[in-house]
C-alpha cells in the first residue's frame, strides 16, 4: 500500500500548483478570498474526480505497462518535479510530468508505446489554443450582452463576484475530472487500484494540496501574467475550465496551466496584446519543456538505483 504514497504526493503537488489556475485570478484581483477559494476548489476537485475522473485513466495504461514499483517511481519523480516547479513559482504541468516519467521508465524497460504519444502531444498543443479560442469567443459574446444591459455598479459587482465563483467551481470540477488520472492513473494500469479507488485517493490528495500549499503559485498566476479585471478573470477561468472539460471527454489529461495561459492570451488579444507579459510566458514555456524531461530523467534514475540495490 505504501506504493500509493508517491501518487498521493504527486496529487498534493498538483493541488498546490494547479489550483492557481482556478482561483488565481479571482484571489489576485481580490474578488474571492483565499480561504473561500481553496475550500471551494477542494470540494469541486473531489467531485470532478469521483464523477468523471476514470475517463482519462485509460490513456495512462496504454502508454506503458508498468509494475507497481515502477508506477511508484514514476509518480514520485513527477511529484518531485512538480514540487520543485512549485517552489520556483513556475506553473508546471503534472500531465507533462507524469507522461514524461512513464515514457522515461517505458524507454528504460522497452515497453513504451509511442503510438499514443501523438494523440497526447496533439492534445497538449491544442490545449492553449483551445483556451485562447474559448476566451476570445466568450469575451466577444459576453461584452455586448453586458454593455447592452443597464446594470447598476452594485449589480455588476455582484454579477462579477458570482461569475468568478461559479467559473472557479466549474474549473475545479474540470481539474479534478481531467487531472486525477495523472495522480493515480498509473496504479490503475498496473492493476494496483480500481478506477473508482484511484479517483477517490487521487481527488483527496489533490484537495489536500489545494488546502495546504497553493498560495504562492496562486499569486504568481493571478498577478504575473497580465493585469486582469474581474470580468476578464471570469472569462479566463471559464475558458480554461471549458478546455479542460473538453479534453476530459476526449480522455486525455492535459495541462490546466496551458489552458489558462491560452485563455489569458485570448483575452489579451481582444483587449490589448500588450497586457500579456512575454517574460512570464517565456518562463512558463520553459517550465512546460523542462517538466517532462526532468520527470523522465528522475524516474529513470530511481528505477536504475532500485535495480542496483535489489
Amino acid at each position: 500500500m505504501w506504493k500509493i504514497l508517491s501518487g498521493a504526493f504527486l496529487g498534493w503537488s498538483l493541488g498546490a500548483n494547479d489550483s492557481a489556475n482556478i482561483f488565481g485570478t479571482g484571489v489576485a484581483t481580490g474578488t474571492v478570498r483565499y480561504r473561500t477559494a481553496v475550500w471551494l476548489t477542494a470540494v469541486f476537485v473531489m467531485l470532478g474526480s469521483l464523477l468523471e475522473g476514470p475517463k482519462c485513466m485509460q490513456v495512462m495504461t496504454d502508454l506503458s505497462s508498468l509494475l507497481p514499483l515502477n508506477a511508484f517511481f514514476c509518480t514520485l519523480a513527477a511529484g518531485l518535479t512538480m514540487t520543485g516547479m512549485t517552489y520556483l513559482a513556475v506553473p508546471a504541468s503534472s500531465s507533462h510530468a507524469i507522461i514524461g516519467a512513464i515514457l522515461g521508465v517505458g524507454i528504460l524497460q522497452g515497453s513504451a508505446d509511442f503510438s499514443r504519444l501523438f494523440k497526447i502531444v496533439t492534445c497538449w498543443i491544442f490545449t492553449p489554443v483551445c483556451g485562447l479560442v474559448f476566451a476570445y469567443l466568450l469575451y466577444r459574446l459576453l461584452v455586448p450582452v453586458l454593455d447592452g444591459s443597464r446594470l447598476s455598479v452594485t449589480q455588476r459587482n455582484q454579477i462579477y463576484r458570482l461569475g468568478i465563483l461559479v467559473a472557479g467551481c466549474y474549473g475545479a470540477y474540470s481539474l479534478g475530472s481531467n487531472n486525477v488520472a495523472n495522480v493515480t492513473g498509473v496504479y490503475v494500469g498496473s492493476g494496483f487500484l480500481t478506477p473508482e479507488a484511484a479517483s477517490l485517493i487521487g481527488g483527496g490528495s489533490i484537495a489536500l494540496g489545494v488546502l495546504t500549499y497553493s498560495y504562492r503559485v496562486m499569486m504568481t498566476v493571478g498577478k504575473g501574467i497580465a493585469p486582469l479585471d474581474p470580468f476578464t478573470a471570469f472569462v479566463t477561468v471559464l475558458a480554461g475550465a471549458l478546455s479542460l472539460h473538453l479534453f476530459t471527454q476526449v480522455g486525455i489529461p492535459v495541462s490546466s496551466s496551458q489552458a489558462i495561459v491560452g485563455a489569458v492570451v485570448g483575452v489579451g488579444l481582444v483587449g490589448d496584446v500588450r497586457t500579456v507579459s512575454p517574460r512570464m510566458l517565456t518562463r512558463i514555456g520553459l517550465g512546460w519543456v523542462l517538466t517532462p524531461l526532468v520527470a523522465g530523467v528522475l524516474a529513470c534514475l530511481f528505477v536504475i538505483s532500485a535495480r542496483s540495490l535489489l
Partner: protein
Amino acid sequence: MFLKKLLGHDDREKRVVEDMERHIRLLTAGCTAFREALEKNDRKRMSRVKELEREADSIRRGITSLIYRGAFLPYLRPELCKFVDIVDQVFDLLEFAAVCYLDLRFPEALRADCSRVAFLNEQMCDLLRISYQTVMAGEDLREKRLAIRIYEKRIDDMKFGLMKDARKIPIDDFWEGSLLADFLSRLCSVSDVIEDASDHLGILSTIST
C-alpha cells in the same frame, strides 16, 4: 447566511452608495448656504458652511472605512475613495472661502458677481449629484459631463473679470487684501475641482462597466 457571506452580498455596498450620495447632497447644501449667506450678507448662515464641512468629513471617513472593510470589488475601491476625496476637496475650498468671508469686510462692488459664481457652483454640485446617480445606475454620463464642463467654462470666463474688478477696490491693509484674494481664488476654484470630480466619475463609469 453562508451564501450571502460567500457572495459578499450584504448591505455595505448599498450603504456606501447611499453615503456617497449623501456626501454630495451635503456639498450642494453647503453651496446653497454659501450662496444665500453671500447674497444676504448673513454671517450666521456662512458659519453653517463650516458645520456642514465637519459633517461631510465624518461621512467621508465612514465611506472610506466601509469600502476598506470589503464593500465592492478591490479594483473599484481606490477609484471610489478618490472620488470621495475629490468631493471633500470641494468642501475644503468652500469652507476656506467661508472662513475668509467671515474675517473680511466684503466689498459690495463684488457681491453680485461673487453671488453669481456661488450660484453656478451650486448648480454644478447638483449636476455632480445627478452624474453620480447616472454612474451608479450604469447609464451614459456624457451629457452630464458636458453640462458640467459648460458651467465650468462660464465660471472661468467670469473669474478674470472678477479679478479685474477686485484690483480696482482700494485696500487699507495687507491682510484685508490677502483675505479678499484668498476668498476670490477659493470661490473660483470650486468649479475646477467639481469638474475634476466629474472627470473621475467618467473613469469610474468606464472601469465599472
